[in-house]
Each structure stands twice: as structure tokens, then as C-alpha cells.
């Protein structure tokens, strides 16, 4: 009895001693006293599809702070000889209210990028000029075969559903597929309401995964596709340049796989924005295809 008691007490102590962590205020994190130089952060993509194009501008920030809103910037994109003006979404007449926010700049009109052209972003903000360029690589055609077919998730008995998203390495070409579909949202006075959802699959030629545990699969936020049974799924394939591919992998290293056992050496993500700016301005050729959900599911089962 006594020896059992000693073991129990020892175990409780050991358990409490082994894994300890607590909340910490930012000012107590080592390195807090080192301040980052506040600079422009760009996240924007110009596609070859004629549509409104978006560029989001914000700033870098110190620990414990939030980014500044970048309003009143002069934003232009040059494609070949053409120069396109971008205006802030809050001042744009054709952008739905739910997408409007300060710092989000939208092309004045629907525009498209051009394959083979260098696309250059110029931003003038608080008297400083920033430039970023990317070449648009031609996208190849695709079909719903091979690695493009999403995986099957089999969670409840034999009920199967498709899982969208994912990151695959050592592919023949680098590209992104953006999946769009409708899911059942609920019922209101008007009847059944479906909601549009989307997810992304990333394909990289990079020969090695930063996270060996997800050697060829690893899933982003929207894991459960859960489409309505009669839904059509739209897949949009986007080409990405080698520089953009590196940027995306480094961003994933810094966010999704930070501090994991196989993590690469931590370092700042390389940017293509001049003047010490951060982020990436990319140009992507796109091609879209549709497929019924059930057909895609069938292909996935056969895979």
C-alpha cells in the first residue's frame, strides 16, 4: 500500500514536472526589443483571365502590434505597354461590400495578364516607391487524372467524401489548382441555400518536402469538401513561376511547418518587392474545367 502511494505521488510530481508551458506577454519574448523596420507587405496575383484583379497591401509589424492599413497608395500594374490603375476596394463601385476592406486594391476595370510578359507592380506609399515583377508562365492543359484527382476521406464507416486541398512535391511542373464548389448551407424562406466554398492544391517541382511526414500529402484549412450531391466542381489550374514557387514553399515553412521535427532553418521569406518591401506579386496563367462531384468521386475511388 505504502509503495503504491509513493509511486502515485511520484507519478503526479513527474507528470507536473515534465510538460510545462504558460502564456507569455509579447514584451517577455526574447527579441522583443529588436524592432522590425516597418515596410510594405504585398500579396497580389494577376491572372490571364479577364476579371477584376486584386492586390492586398499591408505593412510588417513588431511583435504585439498589428499591421498598418495601407490607404491612399498609388497602385499601378504594367503589362507590356499597358498600364492599369488600381483603386482601393472601399472606393470601388463594382466590388461587393463583403469583400471591401481598406488596403485591398482592385483594378479599375476587368483586366487580364499576358503569357510571356513581365508584369510589374508599382506602389507609391507615403512618398516611397516599391516595385515588384513576375513573368507569366504558360499553363498546360490538365484533366482529372493522376495527381490532380483529390484524395478520398473515409471517416464514418464506408461513407466517402472528397478532400480538397493539399501540397504535393516532386511533381513534373509547379502549379496550383483552386477548387470551387457549393455545399449545403441550410434552409430559409426561399428554400435550400447552398454556399460557395473553395480550396487549393499546391504542386511543386521541388524534390523534397519540408515536412517529411507529409511526404506527398498535407492538407490546408479546408479539409472537408462536403459538396452537395448534384454539385459541379470547378477546378482552375494556375501556372506559377519558379520564384513564386519558392516564395510559397518558404511561406509554408514559416507558417504551417514551423518548429516541426523536419523544419528547415528558420529564415525570412524571400520577397520580389524592391526597397526592402515584403511579400510577392505574381502573374499566373489560368485554365478552368468543370466536373460533376459524383464523377470526381468515382475517379477518386478508382485511383
Amino acid at each position, binding site marked *: 500500500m505504502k509503495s503504491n502511494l509513493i509511486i502515485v505521488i511520484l507519478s503526479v510530481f513527474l507528470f507536473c514536472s515534465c510538460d510545462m508551458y504558460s502564456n507569455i506577454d509579447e514584451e517577455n519574448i526574447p527579441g522583443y526589443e529588436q524592432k522590425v523596420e516597418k515596410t510594405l507587405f504585398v500579396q497580389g496575383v494577376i491572372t490571364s483571365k479577364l476579371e477584376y484583379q486584386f492586390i492586398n497591401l499591408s505593412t510588417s509589424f513588431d511583435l504585439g502590434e498589428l499591421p498598418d492599413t495601407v490607404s491612399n497608395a498609388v497602385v499601378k500594374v504594367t503589362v507590356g505597354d499597358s498600364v492599369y490603375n488600381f483603386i482601393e476596394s472601399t472606393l470601388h463601385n463594382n466590388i461587393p461590400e463583403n*469583400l471591401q476592406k481598406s488596403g485591398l486594391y482592385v483594378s479599375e476595370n476587368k483586366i487580364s495578364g499576358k503569357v510571356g510578359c513581365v508584369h510589374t507592380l508599382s506602389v507609391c506609399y507615403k512618398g516611397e516607391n516599391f516595385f515588384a515583377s513576375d513573368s507569366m508562365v504558360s499553363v498546360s492543359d490538365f484533366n482529372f487524372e493522376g495527381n490532380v484527382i483529390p484524395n478520398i476521406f473515409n471517416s464514418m464507416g464506408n461513407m466517402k467524401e472528397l478532400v480538397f486541398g493539399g501540397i504535393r512535391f516532386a511533381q513534373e511542373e509547379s502549379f496550383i489548382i483552386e477548387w470551387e464548389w457549393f455545399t449545403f448551407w441550410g434552409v430559409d424562406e426561399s428554400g435550400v441555400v447552398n454556399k460557395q466554398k473553395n480550396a487549393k492544391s499546391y504542386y511543386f517541382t521541388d524534390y523534397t518536402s519540408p515536412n517529411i511526414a507529409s511526404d506527398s500529402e498535407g492538407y490546408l484549412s479546408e479539409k472537408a469538401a462536403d459538396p452537395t450531391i448534384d454539385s459541379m466542381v470547378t477546378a482552375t489550374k494556375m501556372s506559377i513561376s519558379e520564384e513564386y514557387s519558392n516564395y510559397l514553399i518558404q511561406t509554408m515553412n514559416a507558417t504551417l511547418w514551423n518548429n516541426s521535427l523536419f523544419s528547415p532553418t528558420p529564415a525570412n521569406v524571400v520577397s520580389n518587392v524592391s526597397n526592402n518591401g515584403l511579400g510577392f506579386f505574381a502573374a499566373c496563367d489560368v485554365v478552368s474545367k468543370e466536373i460533376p462531384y459524383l464523377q470526381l468521386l468515382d475517379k477518386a475511388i478508382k485511383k
Partner: protein
Amino acid sequence: MVKKILFLVCTIFITSICAYSQSKISGIVKDSISGEVLVGAIVSVGENHDLTNNYGRFITSTNSTNCNIEISYLGYETYKKSLTINSDTSIVILLRTNAVKIDGVTVKADFTKNSLNCKQMSMQSITQTPTSFGEPDVIKVMQLQPGIKNIGDGSSGLFVRGGNTDQNLIYIDEASMYSTSHMYGFVSICNPFLLKSVKFYNSYIPSEYGGRISSVLDMQLKEGNKKTYAGSFNIGTLSTNIGVEGPIIKDKASFFVAARGGNLNYILKDLDLPSFNDVIAKVNVDLNKNNTLFLSAYLSQDKEIKKEINSGHIQKNNSFIARWACSPKPNIFINTSLIANNYKTKSSQDSILSNKDVYKSYNWSSGVQDYVAKTKIELLLNPKNRLAFGGSFIYHQLTPGESSKESMSIPNSDVLENSIFIEDNIYFTNKFKAQIGIRYMEYWNVGKAVWYSYDNNYTAATATKNVEDGGIWNRYNSLEPRVKLSYLQGKSEYAISYTRTSQSLRKLSNNTLAYSNIETWVPASPNIKPMFCDNISAGYLFSTNSITILAEAYYKHIKNQIDFIDHAKLFGNPHIESQFRAGSAQAYGFEISLQKKSGKFTGQASYSLSKVEYNIPGITNVNKYSAPYDIPQDFKIQLSYEIIPQLNVGVAWVYSSGRPVTTEIGGTLYSYSALNSGDFTQKKDLVPIYSERNSVRLPSYHRLDISCSYDFKAQKHFSHSVSAGIFNAYGRENPMYYDVNLDEPSFVHYSFKYLPSLSYKLKIF
């Protein structure tokens, strides 16, 4: 010029042999109960002192016909006798064990046998030093010595005078160990109850040792009781071990076998801790008076299984050693060893679907296989001159990373490491002593291989070469002079030394985490040159029976030190050699320690001040930056008080500056959901902005450990004791790492505090 130097050396050598006309006293020192030879016992005849060598042998001298001989060894009664010497004499001395006490004192890690280049410890001093979890541990005891740093609780790495953990040559019975730990560093690989002697070199490294540039930790295992059967059983918080020893043929051959297993994985089942076990077996046979054969095996395994996601990690370390010790004459010793060594780590995972995450199966393994043949001949030419020479062949078969996916495998590589050495340990006068040695090493890349060459930007392999013929396809060599000059004055010793060392193999591991079991070894190749280290040190030692004062300063320059580039991908990357850059490292520092060894109150205090800098182009915006283990100051104190002969209490306090890290200092917000949809209203991820490499320091580290032990009254056939302790008794929250979040609170993860321990030891004889 070379001829002149050779002539001078030969003249000194021959003169020292011929000019010697005193009576020689040679002998062997053994344990009176087990018959095992005692390594490192102090033999004093008048003003002459000597240490027994690895075979328990000594040779000393006297001018007079009547002299007093005194032999002392930790844990044994001091042997004193008057001798009448008419001619050269050979004697066998049996020392009687003094159980736990010497002169009524509990002795801690006792370095009284130190010279300024070699620190020696016995099993007793190791088992009596309090460490984390209250269990004796040779690596943890080493971490308490001045100038040796570690970077976190539980870690079994030794950072010696600006050297990284892979720069230490760690021997167990002459087999080189590639991993020093079980359970990610909580337990070191060698069962401390099986050790006969431990030698540690960190300034002057004798020329018989090579292949690592910073230090040598040479552990010798017990040989087994040649007279009676005995056993031991120890159980503690971390591990249980059991050992049996005894004669196979009385006074001729003996055996020793011991097994150890981890306990924490049973006590804390919910934490999914790894399990470990190791087995050591040894047989030694006196073939005749002059020849002894030793056969030993070391088998260890760590296993971690995560049932929820069917993943596992296994680390194995197996060594087989055959050693033949021959002494054709009382003053000639020949030691020849054949060693096979296999170190392997393997990580794997089954393909499963869980919680809507998809885990693909993978296998990843790495390892090193060694086949070693080496010999050393030691001549005790006279009491003032010892000469040693020999050579070795080591065939390394390296598997830097084998993956289930062929494109992610790193090509295997074979290396042949050949060396010869000679060293003379000579007293020019009674006060002036020198150790002069030279070692020559050849590193050959051999066998079938695939290697890549890179352009100046390292960005891509410009060519792939296949070496099909299996011959030598790349070679490096290294000539390593080593010298130590000592001046002895009474109980003081002044010494200066210079040592050049080289190293072909490097360990690559993820050093961003406090604990990591993922590591791989890679050899020098046409793309990476071996490391070369020049080490200069100067020191002062004052030692009496009651106190020892040691002060030492050093400067070390390492050529071809590597560091990883930004975003380096270490695993599953066939182009791994493009992921780091080479430059240099320099380390310098000052260490001082004071040890009180007698009386009821004993202890040791040490302080070190040091700096380690890398100068590696292409890593940071500035050329020089701190090494990740640059810990400028550390202060360590261990105190022990004997309340009654059976009851002893001890405290240890450790303070060190915080280590440098690369950490988040700011960030930007990235939206994965917005790509071409323009929807930036969704959740955003923090993309950290990092500090310059190793430019931020963690808070300083300190903790207090308390321990006590009680020895029950020894019975006719057994003795037993119990000990208890608390690690980090005042609950200092020493940060291990930080988890910086944006939309959630940030966390700091601490290492252990208020960690209790309890252990029981039983010895049957």
C-alpha cells in the same frame, strides 16, 4: 631542416634512455577483491609520481635503496609500504576497497589525478554526483565541469570549448559512439555502474586519438570479478538495471553482463515517451601471464511508437569489440583491437487517414557502420620516458538518409580513415616535462558512389558523377603536431600546449528544437573539406590532498566549420551539400575551478568566461556571428555535507548565460484563402520576420538541485542504499522555446522544475 629535427629528437630519445641509471620499480595495481586492474591510480615514490596506464601498469624509480611507495586510488585504502631496492624490482599491489568513504569523506567527482590535459573519473565519483532524475550519468557529470556547456535540461550533448556536439570523440571500450543519449538526451548511453574509468581530454589531446577536433571522452568498462560471483540491482525514476559478474575460471577469466531499461515510459504512459534498453556484456581471459583477450558487446535500442498515427522512431547502437592486450616484457604493452560498430536511426509512418488529415506512409533512415582495426604499442623506456606509437584503419559506411521515395534519398558514402601516430612522454628534468606527439591522417572517399558538383551559387547541381570503379576517388590528409610543456613546482603545475586535430565526419541535425532525435552523419567529400582545429591553451594547477585549484585559458581556431543556409532542407534532400556553407570558427575563454576534497564538507565551484564566433560567408549580413552554443558565462557549484557516516546531503547550483537563438521579432499577415478570389477577409497566418542568425539570447539559465543518500548497514553478502532528490528545487522557469502566435496567446515552454527522483541500489557480493 627535417633531418636536423629528426637528429635532435633521436638524440634526446637515446640520451634519455642511456643516461638513466636509477633503480626501476615497475608493477601492476589491482583490486584485491575482484582482481581487476586499476587504471589511473597514483603511484608515488619519493618525489616521483606516476599514473597506472590502461593495463594498471606503472614504472617509477628511486636513487636510494630504501624508499617509501604510496599508491592511492579513489574509493580504495591508500597503500603505503617501505621497500628495500637493490636492483630493478617488479611488484603486484592489491588495493582494498574502502566502500564509499575515504578518510571519512564522501568524495565527489574527484579530479585529483588530473594533469592539466586529462581529467579522470572513477565509477564512484560519477555515481555520487547528483544529476537530473537522481541517477548517475557520466555525460551529465561532465556537463558540470568547467568549460563544458549544454543547451537544455535533459540534453546529453557536450559543447566543449567552442566545439559542437559532433566534435567529441566518445569511446566505450574503444568503440566510437555516434549518439550519446537515450530518450532524446535524458539518459546517456553508457550505464554508469559498469564503468571502470573515464578519461577526458579537452586541451592537449594525445596523438593516439584522432578523427574529432574538440575533445575525447574515453570510457573503459569493468572487466568482471575474477574471484567471486557478484551482482547489482538499481532502480530509479529513469531506469532499472541489473548486472552479474564472476569468474569463468578463477583468477584466469571473468565475465560481466548487465542490462538496463527505461522506467519513465511505464510511469508516464500518457506522455507517449520513448522506451530504451541496453545490454553490455564482457568477457576477459588471461591467456597466459603476458596476454589477455577481451571480448565486449554493447547493444542499445530506443523505440518510440505513436499509436494514434502509427508512427515510430527507432535508434540502434550496436558495437562488438575484440581486444588483445599483450605485454611481452614488463615495460612493453601492445594493444590491438578489432571493432564493428553499427549506429542506425529509422523513422517510419503507416499510411492512414485520421481526423480528416491524410498521412502518407514514409520511411527514413540514416546511420553509420564502422569496421576498425587498430594497434598501439607503449614502451615504458624508463621512469622518465614513455613512448607510444601505433596506427588504425577505420572503414566508415555512411547512410546519410535513405527514404522510401528514391528521389529523396541521399547517396550512400564510404570513407576510409587511416592514421599513424607517435608520442613521447618525457621528463627532461624532475621539474620539466613534455609530451610531444604527431599524428598523420588520411581520409579517403572510396567505393561506388554518386556525388554532385555545384556552381558558384550552390543553387543547383551542374553535374552528377557516378564513381563505378570502387577505388579511391577523393582524398584529404592531415599532419597533426601536438605538444605540451609542463613545469612542475611542488604541488603546482604550469603548462602550455598546442594541439592540431582534424575531422572528416559531421553530424547534421535540426538545431531549432531543444530536443531532436533526427540526425544524420555526412563525410568530407569534394564539396566539403574536413575540419581542422588549432588549439592553444595555458594553465595552472595546484593540487594537495584537500584542495585543487585549476585555471586555464585557451584559444581555438576551426577551419571549415559549417552552418546551414536560410531555409536549409536537411532531410530527404539528395543535394544536402548545397544546404550549408563553410567558413571558420574561433573560440577563446578562461576557466577556473576550486575543489575541496577532504573533510565532512566537500565541493567544487567553477566559473568560465568564453566566446564562440562563426565567420562563415553567405549566412548573415555580417561575417562574424555567435555560434548557437555561445554561452559566455557559466558558474557551477556542488556542495556535499556528511551529516553522519551513512547520511549525505548535497546541493548543486548552476548558472549560465542564455544561449543565442534566431527568433521571431515581428511579422506580416498572409492569407491562404485569398489567391485570385480577392477574399482577404478570412483568417490570416502570421509569417514571422526573424532576427539575424543567433542574434537574440534566451534568458539566463539557473537551477538548484538537492539530493540526499542513505547507506544502510552493510550485511555479510550485500549492501544497499537509497537516494532521493529534487531537480530545479526552486522552480526556475528556464525557457526551452517560444510559440509565438498572433490571434492566440503566445506560449513559452519551460524545462523541468520541482522534478523529484528516488532510487534504490543493491549490491550483492
